[in-house]
């Protein structure tokens, strides 16, 4: 089953990351992902980090989505 929630990298040690998913700590291999840094968010599948979430992209797509749904005014989005 896919773990849908992104996990925060809290520690990196010899190609293994310690990740935090809603307070639960787990290990994830970094063999499938380059350039991961502490503090970044990754998607983890079966013990491997497979994608690094780009905060900027995430925020932009959320804003596009809200605009498309014609819901929130600009001021609220910017905060």
């Amino acid at each position, binding site marked *: *089953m896919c773990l*849908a929630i992104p996990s925060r990298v809290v520690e990196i040690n010899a190609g293994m990351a310690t990740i935090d998913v*809603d307070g639960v700590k787990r290990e994830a291999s970094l063999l499938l992902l380059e350039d991961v840094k502490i503090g970044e*968010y990754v998607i983890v599948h079966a*013990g*491997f980090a*497979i994608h690094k979430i780009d905060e900027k992209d995430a925020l932009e*797509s959320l804003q596009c989505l809200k605009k498309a*749904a*014609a819901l929130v005014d600009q001021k609220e989005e910017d905060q």
Partner: protein
Amino acid sequence: MPIKHLEEYRDSDLSRQLVEKIKRIRSKKLRLMEVCGTHTVSIFRAGIRSILPDTIKLLSGPGCPVCVTDQREIDAFIELSKIDDVIITTFGDLMRVPGTLASLQKERADGRDIRIVYSAMDAVEIAAKNPNKKVVFPGVGFETTAPTIAAAMISAKKMQLENFFVYSALKLIPPALEALMSMEAVKIDGFILPGHVSVIIGLNGYQPFFDKYKIPCVISGFEPVDILQAIAMLAGQLKTGIPKLENAYVRAVTIAGNRRAQEIMMNVFQPVDVAWRGIGTIPQSGLGIRENYIAHNAEAKFDIKLPDPEDPKGCACGQILIGTRSPLECPLYKNVCTPMDPVGPCMVSSEGACAAYYRYHS
């Protein structure tokens, strides 16, 4: 600490707006397939089926890895567990899947060494710690899981672990979509494409399929807002009559996907023809282990005798996986077949459509 903005993807106001939008653009009846088992569960958990207009029907697809695994392969895992000195290391979902004669769970109760692991890497570790045993990992899953198993095999090779083996039943999603499109009985107006398969193969992974069939396709994330957005985009495409391959999960899926994972996967595996439960053999839809990893290929290493495969009697999993029947249309659903006492794999796996209906359908 949850990721910033995650809450917003669960925002019920935004969800409501999206539902309104879908209601405005819906025209005629639409049959949309959510290919991925994790989507099936998210859709139920968020109650999406009940808030959508009646004109939109969601069908669960062949994206539950355990469910589409052919009975022959399930039987092979069970037979392997009976070999002396073998330790089977597996994801938990496989334990209770009924094979023709038994299940891994039953074999474990009979004293076989079968251990549940969270990652293929754990299996490699078990092999390193047990040099006198042969550790077999049943490889079940799609493009998301295949690179993790490939990486574990590469590690085992580097560590010169001669006692680590994989039995590959790994499968690829785009060839399965093609197979669905060519089946007479299957009627689908658009696909909600799996989020984490797409993380690996990217938007590009579906391009050849899309170019061939020109059917609306949208990649979706797993939060309620993600799924509703994907449905709104599909409904929009169907209204304009211009099919597109679109990405509604931009924060996780890129155009090219995870190239490194793709490379690792293709270093170890190559496409082969394999059988899917409910669909039959699909050309080039499986991942076989390449010659240079033959030392870690359980199929080549062990000579096992398989019983004539027999699917569970009366089980409609096959049709459920291609969207031609719903669990509610299976006579065994809920009265004979329950998650406590499952007849078929669609009730065993937490991602299976029958298990999702059982848990969430009132």
